[in-house]
């Protein structure tokens, strides 16, 4: 089972780079999610890998095979890949069995009986046994999705590509299918690229996440790494909610903004440099006089607004002697009112400095 390597991949549309010198390595049997907002180049990247598009520069390698370069491109049908589309792209004029069996017709040395058996097996895996003779229009959205999955997996591709496959499903079904796709990945172990704009989906499904920003990979890592140690302002802002404080480095491990001074999770800042600091709302705690670890940042402020969200309460806190407003997520046990004076403790490990 080979991996996929993208080297300096570039694709322009009318002078604008949709994918800009993109580098990414997907290890064998790994599932990597390409995550980003619309227009970040994730779908273009996937279509480049599939061979529907030709890159202007860069190369795509699968194992020892170079599939795309600026001068030559292997057509999609010879890439030994399979893809699951956003629209499912089930052929309405073919039955479920014909849809699923289509790709097997291009496998050498496979008899009709073999094909039928494989199709039946695969339909059992996706829990659609007995639906062979139906047409796609006779199926529900979730069932259509399963047919699309079966059609892609039955050919035993080297690489599986998924383009926002769950975006047409309703919320409950979407959640269920996340686990289903993860389960199938663990069963078959196919190297997979998964495009999504939904961070929760990316976190549940993937081994690693590649966050894309304006055609480049902003950061690659496990869900935990990306969430806890974002490397750019974009990643910190895009993944989960966060407070971003623009400040200036005062010492190698502390920054200031006006009267506010924060110790941060670093020891090598250049004093005088501009630094953004990301602080997750749930890492900030309300301090009572006795609580708090030595060395925590302690700041005082006043509650500006309270929003009750059921499982948490969202506070906006105006810091004293500062223009900074922090959002704080706290358990609903504690109920503060707007206008109350509060003290906050922020561990330095929760203050992640980001280069500008």
């Amino acid at each position, binding site marked *: 089972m080979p991996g996929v390597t993208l080297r300096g991949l570039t694709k322009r549309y009318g002078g604008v780079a949709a994918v800009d010198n993109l580098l990414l390595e997907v290890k064998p049997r790994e599932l990597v999610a390409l995550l980003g907002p619309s227009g970040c180049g994730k779908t273009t990247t996937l279509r480049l890998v599939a061979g529907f598009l030709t890159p202007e520069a860069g190369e795509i390698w699968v194992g020892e095979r170079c599939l795309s370069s600026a001068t030559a491109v292997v*057509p999609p049908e010879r890439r030994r890949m399979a893809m699951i589309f956003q629209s499912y*792209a089930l052929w309405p004029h073919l039955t479920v069995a014909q849809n699923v069996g289509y790709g097997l017709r*291009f496998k050498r040395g496979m008899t009709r009986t073999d094909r039928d058996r494989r199709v039946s097996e695969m339909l059992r895996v996706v829990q659609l046994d007995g639906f062979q003779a139906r047409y796609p229009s006779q199926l529900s959205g979730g069932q259509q999705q399963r047919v699309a999955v079966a059609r892609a997996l039955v050919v035993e591709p080297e690489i599986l590509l998924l383009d926002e496959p769950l975006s047409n499903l309703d919320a409950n079904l979407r959640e269920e299918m996340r686990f289903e796709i993860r389960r199938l990945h663990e069963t078959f172990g196919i190297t997979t690229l998964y495009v999504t704009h939904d961070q929760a989906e990316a976190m549940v499904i993937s081994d690693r996440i590649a966050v894309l920003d304006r055609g480049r990979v902003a950061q690659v890592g496990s869900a935990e790494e990306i969430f806890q140690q974002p490397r750019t302002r974009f990643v910190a802002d895009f993944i989960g909610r966060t407070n971003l404080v623009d400040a200036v480095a005062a010492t190698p491990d502390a920054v200031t903004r006006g009267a506010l001074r924060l110790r941060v999770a670093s020891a090598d800042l250049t004093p005088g440099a501009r630094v953004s600091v990301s602080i997750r709302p749930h890492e900030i705690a309300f301090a009572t006089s006795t609580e708090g670890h030595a060395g925590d940042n302690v700041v005082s402020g006043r509650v500006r607004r309270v929003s009750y969200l059921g499982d948490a309460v969202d506070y906006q806190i105006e810091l004293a002697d500062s223009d900074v407003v922090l959002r704080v997520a706290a358990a609903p046990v504690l109920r503060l009112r707007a206008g109350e004076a509060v003290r906050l403790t922020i561990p330095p490990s929760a203050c992640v400095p980001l280069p500008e």
Partner: protein
Amino acid sequence: MRSSVVKSTFDRSVPVWITTAVTLVLLMILPLGWLAWVSVSSEQGTTFANYVQVFGDPHLQKALWNTIVLAFWVGAASLAVGVPMAWLTGRTDLPGKRTIRALIMASFVTPPFLGAFAWVMLAGPNAGLLNKVYRGLTGSDEPLMNIFTMSGLVFVVTLYSFPYVYIMIVNTLELIASDLEEAGAILGASRLRVALTITLPLALPAIISGFILAVLQALALFGSPAILALPAGFHTITTQIWTFFQYPPKVEQAAAFSIPLLLATALLLQLQKRLLGRRGYAGVGGKTGARRPIPLGRWRWAALAGVFAVLACTIVLPYAILAKAAFAKAWAQPLSWDNLTLANFTFTFFEYSATRDAIINTLELGIVTATVGAVMAALLAYVTNRRLVPGHQALGFLAVAPVVIPGVVLAVGLFIAYTRPPLVLYGTLAILFVAYLTKELPVGYAQADTTFKGVHPELEEAGRILGAGRLRVLREITAPLARSGIIATWCFVFIGVIRELSASIILFTPATKVISVVIFDLKEEGQFAAISVLGLFMLAMTFGIVLLMQTALGRDFLGAKD
């Protein structure tokens, strides 16, 4: 590092695209280029003398004026008929809507010159049946109406132009949500106020563009003016251009007279496109709730009577008189057993050689043009929809561009372009084929374009990634999904070809007559019975194809999915 780059194989489709592009240039650029050139040329070189001569001639000025009068009144009358009918069938509880729609569709596909001809038999000042009945009832010496007048011409042309208005408006009304109207009603507006202040303004772009389509129809028409205006002693632009081709032909003047017609058409279509392009602001579209028909109450049956009066004039009376003339020994005599005969059929199909040849020519041209046209339209629509070549937008534009060329003008251009080397096509069926192909391509392209817009590209990509090559995907996925749409394209082109008169009348030669031209000739000879037989034959063919098309599309081709 070991490299296993596979060179991309040469794409066999490239020559196909190039051929199509070249063909489009041959169909469009060559005739229009020659038309423009000849209009400014004389033996002394480049000149505007042709224009000066043509537009200085009082007779020709009169023809120009007649055309403007005709077009304007046809537009206005089409609105007067089409708007209420669209509202009645689209929005109210009028009974018999399906039948009404079917009959309006029948008026839409009836060749206007057949209608004009039927109305000669119905309302000619002396022998016209309606006038005879009127005289018999009243004892008057005066006819009820004389169809050989400008108002008669406006009347007949309107009967076959109002469906354009009707289609535009009925389709728009279907998109205007009832909620918008109910929002007005809940704020206290009466039913009439809602219609005037909400529905009407929302439908206004469609109404104006329907008006423009009807005007264009009247501008480009040759048959009806030739049948009704010429005996009345007046000309329109199209009949005048045709006269320029009577011996000795004055091609330069015909060209100079064609250019303004071409420009007017182009301008009006541009205007119409603008109007429809703005439609977004109207809030038309989006989610529409269930349609709640407006109760007409006691006006229900009066409205129905009005609608059927119109449809009697477009369909019932003309078809009845054609049938009568086809089966009667003498069409003007009362229908009795003695007067019935099949001799007209034997005469038309077996004895009169011109008709037999014309039928064969028409069928041949219809089948060849429809086949070539459908293939071309499909290719072009596929290329533009899938953006397969650089400049694909230009191809799409070229494919619909001929829509601005009135048939007569196209014929003048083709006549000039293909009576000289290197391509001497005049005198062969080929020149008619080129004319029909050019004229029908926009309709065919529009149909094919809709078809491919309905085939999601991901359906093809899914086939590619699973191992099927481009041609295999075309054959196994695209073709089956597009099939019914392409059959409909074929039918549209075929129907357009078999009824074509305005270009044929200039391009035919004795050996290359088609049915419409023969009907026109027979009129000069006063062979009413043979005309009626040919007319019925033509209608039967048309309706046969319409049925085929509806089966293929699974809906009626005005766009309803009832």
